[in-house]
């Protein structure tokens, strides 16, 4: 799919320089990552007013805009049509408001997520999400992609944690949604529309989150065996009184996993206090024995190291598929997918958040579009057999130009397009990133 050729970059730069001075430049690398086009104009507004003024011009000129943070997650979603202007948010990088006693933080979209976590950590708090991300990833990008990881099984996702937004609409209007308090039902919960909207509705300028305390004590049990036993064990834990803060199941491909038999390993985390954490470790180890499964326990720093190893293993993946299958069948579905996959140079890394019903397959160096298509087809087929679905979570431009990342969108297409048209009637925001083959 090729989008329209778009507006001449030099003309855009001339127009922007008139109003903003030298804020804009031509970028080839970003262009390649965005859509595979030759070049793109990158503009870096210094504040919200400039962002708003920039959007007013883009709107008048009908330029297609892509809000961009650090550019670490551009492989998500479909490939947009030609992007005229990439609005780089990295200068909007302040913590606007942080009151630890209220457990609420308001932060500008261009702030690196890792930086935010560091600052919250100094007050013993965290934004409780753990997506696989490059350190540079910005909070705006994290929200726009609804990035999530194993912790979602206890803490939920950003739809649960994002309580307010300042957005700049495609016509430059500043529109706030939600608020800055944890409970708020005044008006429509517009915030939800922007979380995971992949930059297709508006530019996010500032985001307010509710926070959680950093766990004071950490414990982790890793239990391994075949798919059936691990599935049964995971369900047993879910149905018990235990309080797992992560319950992530891994395939054998990860080299850092303990235990001899590691066909599938489930890692059960606990963020409760010391008394509860110790009790949970003991209970899980006797439960593992009951199931005849191999078992290893970690505490404190070793727990953090385990999750760092996990991240380091998959952070450089360039192709990932997300399967959504009911929790009680997820490991079984993953096993079936694993056995059905064609041979690849490196084994895929499976990572299954069982109670959430979300599994991911990470691949490295996936350059072969046909192979990717074959893998996606298998994932979709088997997920459907189990009552679920599959989507491309990340992929290179050539792969996503050939494959529709979200075939599920067709279910409520007119509603989704209606929401898009309501907020972005000229369709200038990241056109085509959600809707495959959607040319303006």
């Amino acid at each position, binding site marked *: 799919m090729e989008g329209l050729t778009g507006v001449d970059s030099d003309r855009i730069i001339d127009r922007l320089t008139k109003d903003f001075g030298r804020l804009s430049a031509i970028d080839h690398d970003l262009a390649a990552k965005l859509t595979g086009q030759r070049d793109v104009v990158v503009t870096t507004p210094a504040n919200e007013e400039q962002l708003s003024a920039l959007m007013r011009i883009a709107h008048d000129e009908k330029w297609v805009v892509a809000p961009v943070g650090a550019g670490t997650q551009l492989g998500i979603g479909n490939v947009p049509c030609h992007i005229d202007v990439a609005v780089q948010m990295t200068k909007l990088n302040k913590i606007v408001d942080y009151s630890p006693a209220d457990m609420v933080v308001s932060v500008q979209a261009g702030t690196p997520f890792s930086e935010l976590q560091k600052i919250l950590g100094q007050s013993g708090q965290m934004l409780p999400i753990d997506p696989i991300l490059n350190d540079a990833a910005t909070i705006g990008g994290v929200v726009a992609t609804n990035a999530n990881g194993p912790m979602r099984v206890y803490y939920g996702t950003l739809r*649960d944690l994002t309580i307010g937004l300042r957005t700049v609409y495609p016509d430059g209007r500043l529109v706030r949604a939600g608020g800055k308090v944890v409970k708020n039902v005044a008006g429509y919960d517009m915030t939800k529309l922007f979380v995971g909207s992949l930059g297709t509705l508006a530019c996010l300028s500032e985001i307010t989150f509710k926070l959680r305390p950093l766990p004071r004590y950490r414990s982790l049990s890793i239990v391994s065996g075949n798919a059936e036993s691990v599935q049964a064990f995971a369900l047993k834990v879910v149905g018990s009184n235990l309080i797992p803060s992560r319950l992530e199941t891994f395939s054998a491909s990860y080299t850092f996993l303990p235990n001899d038999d590691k066909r599938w390993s489930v890692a059960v985390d606990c963020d409760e206090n010391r008394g509860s954490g110790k009790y949970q470790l003991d209970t899980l180890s006797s439960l593992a024995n009951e199931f005849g499964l191999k078992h290893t326990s970690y505490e404190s720093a070793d727990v953090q190291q385990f999750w760092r190893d996990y991240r380091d293993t998959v952070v450089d993946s360039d192709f990932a598929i997300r399967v959504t299958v009911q929790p009680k069948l997820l490991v079984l579905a993953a096993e079936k997918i694993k056995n059905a996959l064609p041979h690849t140079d490196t084994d895929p890394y499976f990572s299954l958040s069982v109670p959430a019903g979300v599994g991911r397959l990470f691949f490295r160096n996936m350059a072969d579009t046909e192979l990717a298509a074959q893998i996606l087809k298998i994932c979709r087929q088997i997920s459907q057999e189990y009552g679920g679905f599959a989507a491309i979570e990340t992929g290179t431009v050539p792969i996503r130009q050939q494959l529709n990342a979200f075939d599920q969108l067709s279910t409520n297409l007119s509603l989704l397009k209606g929401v898009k048209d309501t907020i972005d009637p000229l369709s200038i925001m990241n056109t085509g990133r959600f809707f495959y083959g959607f040319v303006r």
Partner: protein
Amino acid sequence: MEDSQLIEELVNIVGPKRIYTDPEQLERYNGDAYSVQKALPRAVVIPENTEEVVKIVKLLNRAGVPFLARGAGTGLSGGAIPLHHEVVISMMKMNKLLSVDLDNMRAVVQPGLVTIKLTRKIKDKGYYFAPDPSSEALCTIGGNFAENAGGAHCLKYGVSTNHIVAAEVVLPDGELVHIGSEFGDQVGYDLLGLLVGSEGTLGIVTAITVKIMKIPEAVKTVLAMFDHLEDASSAVSNIIGAGIIPAAMELMDQATMAACDKGDAPVGYPTDIEAVVLIEVDGLAAGVVETSERIVEICEKHHVRTVKVAVSDEERDLWWQSRKTAFVSLGKTTPNYITLDGVVPRTKLTGALGRIKELSETFGLRVSNVFHAGDGNLHPHISYDASVPGETEKALSLGGEILKVCVEAGGSISGEHGVGVEKLEHMHFMFADNELEAQIDIRSFFNPHDLCNPGKLIPSSGKCVEVKQASWQEKRKKHAKPCDDRGQTYA
């Protein structure tokens, strides 16, 4: 379309027994627990399944007749008042628990299922539905969906939107859609997140998939009585600061304590303390004792007069009953009252309460305070006498001033009761005109002719809310059926 023809066509859909047109029957559907305004519906129709809802909505949309869906009518902001002579669609007969899947921790319910009944039906298996608005014994899950209801335990477990994962919805033109995703994340925009809390203005929900949770293994409940309100608020902040997220943290002032002790669940609060805080922690038995001890310690550090941990289920139940019936108890002490629902950042509690006290004195009306202290959700309770000319208006404008204080402190006009008609004008405190327009744009897409619960949630410019008075007697009237309940105020 003539009314008579409309009724005939509605009868064709649901039969003659599930449609009301007699003024006496209609009277029972003239509003909800926001007692300041009432209005008669054009008719009441009671569907039994989704197909009927689709047909009814298609008919009304074609005829250009406004309509609204309602549950038990326990809403506190007037969202179910048929101000435009709507056809009221009562969802109370769609009250089934459709399915429960314990392994996957999901339940599918019809909207008319009373909230507490879901928990009752799965409790013996060790599961429950977390949202627990004080009206849970009467209100419906459909109503919880529409209002994004909260409850005492949402401090730790979140509000309705965090527990609803998918829904079947009849759009205002009668189209049936399925939104959300039973598991994982929906693909595309979060339409479900938008519809939850939309107060019935974007569609009518006909089936709801919710998360169910395991009942915590152990619970510890702490009652802390403070000489000074300020110490109570600092203790609350410091508990959170210590990295503890209690399941609930509820605060009541002296006026409320006094009223509660005259009610059905007397605790025997000292009459010379300013504040009592009810704190609950839950989790694994191996950990809750440690946490409750830590809470006691923090209360002691903040000059608590008495602090105790419940020694029995009976004691815990009594404390909770006292709290949960606080509004009913307060209601008995005054001819009329308004319950507000403002939110302030937790750290601004003391200042906000001081301002509320000043305003109460300026207006010469008593304001009692009960609130979810953990999340800063205040429920100031304004007592007034509607039979005194001008006092209703005075109470309403005091309410407005209090909500202004909340917004100025960085908070919100509503934490869980919704905007309805009650807070339409107060929306201007929070949102600029273009922000309200952005919300109207969304409504216009889903509900282009504004037939689906018109005039609620978002103010239209220059709108004047007519205040009608409800007599004390009418408010007190208690009816056997939940859908008739007007007598109690919940929060």
